[in-house]
């Protein structure tokens, strides 16, 4: 079975016991993203303190990969500036485009923490969008939250 390379224990742990799940107040932006080919959905809220991500709260339904991805993302972005968090998101995209190249995962290990476990997903083109959905939602929600903040994130 090749399955273990994708379904790492870390991923299944996040799937079964998601971190930060649930929609919470306050928030400056809420987005709803769907995966039109498969029906996966996530509703995601961002609460900013200045330009720091104070909270990301979410509800969603979808496969283990999409749900574990948003949980691992939650751990990575809370307390960081929007710019830093989205920079990590770019690294996650790089990992997803690595086609299973272990050297890419190795380089990104410190940066991506638990999320590096998604390296195996990059070998399955149909599942990459599952892993990326939450990061796309975060990017969208952060941009809207910054725009909605009176200080424009300058505070």
């Amino acid at each position: 079975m090749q399955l273990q390379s994708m379904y790492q224990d870390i991923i299944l742990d996040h799937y079964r016991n998601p971190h930060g799940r649930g929609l919470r107040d306050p928030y400056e932006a809420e987005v709803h993203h769907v995966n039109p080919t498969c029906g996966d959905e996530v509703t995601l809220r961002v609460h900013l303190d200045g330009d720091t991500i104070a909270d990301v709260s979410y509800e969603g339904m979808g496969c283990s990969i999409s749900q574990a991805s948003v949980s691992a993302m939650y751990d990575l972005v809370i307390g960081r500036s929007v710019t830093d968090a989205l920079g990590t998101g770019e690294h996650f995209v790089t990992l997803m485009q690595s086609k299973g190249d272990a050297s890419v995962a190795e380089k990104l290990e410190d940066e991506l923490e638990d999320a590096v476990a998604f390296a195996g997903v990059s070998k399955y083109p149909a599942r990459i969008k599952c892993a990326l959905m939450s990061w796309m939602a975060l990017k969208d929600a952060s941009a809207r939250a910054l725009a909605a903040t009176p200080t424009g994130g300058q505070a």
Partner: protein
Amino acid sequence: MTQTVSRPAAGAQKPPLPLDVEAIRADFPILTRTVRDGKRLVYLDSGATSQKPRSVLDAERDFYENHNAAPHRGAHQLAEEATGLYEGARARIAEFISAAVEEVVFTRNTTDAINTVAYALSNAATAKEPSFRRYAVGQGDEIVVTEMEHHANLVPWQQLCERTGATLRWLGLTDDGRLDLSDLGTVVNERTRLVAVTQQSNILGTINPLEPIVARAREVGALVLVDGAQSVPHQPVDVATLGADFLVFSGHKMLGPTGVGVLWGRYEVLDALPPFMTGGSMIEVVRMEGSTFMPPPQRFEAGVPMTAQVVGLGAAVDYLQALGMDRVQAHEEALTGYALEQLQAIPGVTVIGPPDTVARGGAISFTVEGIHPHDVGQVLDDLGIAVRVGHHCAWPVVRRYGVPATTRATFYVHTGYDDVDTLVEGVRAAQRFFGVTPEEATA
């Protein structure tokens, strides 16, 4: 042949299959390849697209190698041969559904065929030619669909309504996956211009009772379009007994090539419709000031057609007719009965759609408690089993039954009991992998 260890449910019936599966498999080159590290390919995704027998591939190759030319043009021998092959295939495909040859229009696929009708109905409203305005759809008119339609038989009608100001109405579904016809008399009424309904659901497997729908449409003078994408490949379909005005289907789901589908239309209706696509091949006389159009079917076949694909579809129809559509249907019914029994015997598995073979085709959608369909599909893929997961282009259906998505297995002429056994074993493997086997829960 199969390396699978099967554990049939108690009392599982395996009636002899009408088709010789081993002989048929030998006709499909792709079934000899392996997937995912040497696994036998168990192809249970014919509902999305079917595999092709060698005779279809040979027919296409022979066309390109020996007869390739644009049909209906050219003063040379190849053009003559290409035209003969193209029109010869049209005649065989017409015969396959008991239609007159001039009623068979070649399209890209079912989606294209439905859009051809939908755009004809809105183009009719602004047609210069009075004879093209007979079926015009406009404000105050209604189009009726059902809640179990594939997006291809829903979105074009939503768009037609947006373009014309007409209203879209629909027949709902019952809890057991059938059409709810209790309000047929009010949903289909004197304002209805067209009823679009699938003959066999691509997600639930349901075979719909078309007679009362066609009868009601006739009463109010509405047109009826039957989506045959999942019925024509799997059961005998005869347009004379169908009673509809249009039947649409795709070649690639019935052993034929991609890029060719059929719009069958009752001649007097087709003849009263303006074209959707315009250009070469479909014109009668062209002047700078304006043009006139050919009668059907040419009016709806603008441009050089998908000739090799039409020839391939002709070969696919020959292949199906040699097997016999009655036997194809009986074959799939036996497999469906066995698969329904086996799958429903697994604790945690729920079939979405009719639970038995009564008025039901071979599309089996199911959920596995505690495992998302994508994850089920991934485990099955790892075992060499190709299924479809997701909403199957019928999003309102999964929403109606309160599930985010389903796993769907579909059968065809090369499917055998060994394939079903592998699928059932695969579902159990998925339960073990994700730790949701009922045995483990009680251990």
